[in-house]
């Protein structure tokens, strides 16, 4: 595969892709629940056996799957998330109280990462004003409305998944599997991308790139995924 003048970021295996990971690292992991999870990278972190990670993820897994494996394996020392829902592993972690869990509004969660990626140290938002979310934070009035100051959220790593990527790390996502991933990529020092398919440089039309490769540092192709359904809801075909 030709990479032209670009650095070839493709790693031969998940183990190689995860090589720079270290104990105590902050790690953003893409996905809305189990939708869009970098399944092989998530499993690879458990196999690697690191500890005390600060996991930054919307749900931290569900139904014992996805990032629930990190909770069970004890690789996590702290979690920043937005929703627990039916994630019993996360509820259990919260009850046990051994690890710090910050639950924050989803829009603030993603905007803090967007800010980090765009070089913005903090921003004001009305979300959370008058609630526990604003406790201890600076507030300010603009016009006739009160806003709370939220700080950028950076991470050492982002582990994300896409449908197609080229060796420079240009990526295209599939359906709602995109969610937080392209934003996390901008906010992390090292973004590791798990691609369902690796394509040649130039194969992606530049207008169709969802995440430009500048934000991606390591790429690994993983062709097999479980992609579990969380709630498989269907309707019956109307009969004539």
């Amino acid at each position, binding site marked *: 595969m030709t990479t032209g003048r670009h650095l070839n970021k493709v790693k031969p295996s998940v183990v190689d892709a995860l090589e720079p990971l270290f104990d105590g690292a902050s790690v953003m992991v893409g996905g*809305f*629940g*189990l*939708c*869009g999870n970098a399944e092989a990278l998530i499993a690879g972190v458990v196999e690697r056996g690191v500890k005390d990670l600060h996991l930054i993820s919307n749900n931290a897994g*569900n139904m014992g799957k996805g990032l629930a494996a990190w909770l069970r394996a004890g690789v996590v020392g702290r979690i920043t*998330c*937005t*929703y*627990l*829902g039916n994630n019993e592993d996360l*509820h259990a972690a*919260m009850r046990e109280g051994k690890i710090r869990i910050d*639950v*924050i*509004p*989803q*829009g*603030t969660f*993603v*905007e803090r*990462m*967007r800010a980090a990626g765009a070089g913005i140290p903090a921003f004001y*938002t*009305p*979300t*959370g*004003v*008058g*609630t*526990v*979310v604003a406790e201890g934070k600076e507030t300010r009035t603009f016009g006739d409305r009160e806003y709370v100051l939220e700080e950028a959220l950076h991470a050492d790593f982002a582990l994300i998944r896409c449908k197609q990527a080229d060796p420079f790390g240009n990526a295209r996502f*599939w*359906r*709602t*599997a*995109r*969610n*937080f*991933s*392209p*934003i996390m990529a901008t906010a992390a020092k090292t973004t590791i991308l798990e691609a369902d398919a690796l394509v040649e440089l130039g194969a992606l039309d530049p207008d169709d790139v*969802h995440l430009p490769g500048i934000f991606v540092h390591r790429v690994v192709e993983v062709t097999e995924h479980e*992609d*579990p*359904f*969380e*709630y*498989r*809801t*269907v*309707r*019956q*075909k109307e009969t004539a």
Partner: protein
Amino acid sequence: MSWGKQDMAKRAAAEIAPGSIVNLGIGLPTLVADYLPDDGSVWFHSENGLLGMGPFPYEGDEDPQLINAGKQTVTVVPGGSIFDSATSFAMIRGGHVDLAVLGAMQVAMTGDLANWSIPGGKTMGIGGAMDLASGAKRILVLTRHTTKEGEPKLLERCDFPLTALGCVDRVITELGVFDVTGDGFRVVELAEGVALEEVREKTGAPLTE
């Protein structure tokens, strides 16, 4: 008599004007979609990154990577679009969503909403609730009038952790339709066979006609 869940959803659907961009919260609010005209005049936004959400897929067409914010498999209508979470929340926080229909644990007469955590109970988390409550142009709450234990949910002041201050415009319960006035709730409509006295007994704030 009072309204059932389906009646409540139907009544909520009547609040939605053609051309609206609507976000339906998890649970009871999702039923509202079933009572809207199937003519593409209302667009559904799902905060996980989808505008133009369609009904559940036909069996065999479901894709685990095409879901709504409740993590149910869904479809996209013609003209729909998919985007990242930052864009999705710019739609919400930037005031581009016309209406959010949300569930509630408590609603105050000032419009304060509590819908994410019960003290001492299981915390489901915040998700997009705080952003929707403070960002959508209009907030319609769809909830039972009282808790399972019979405690009023429409109150002078919420004592559960708040989602947002002064955000709720209108509340639909099994007993009727109520507007937040600041110093009480105004009865817009009562469900068939429901007497004002019953509503008064089950409401923890002044009620006006």
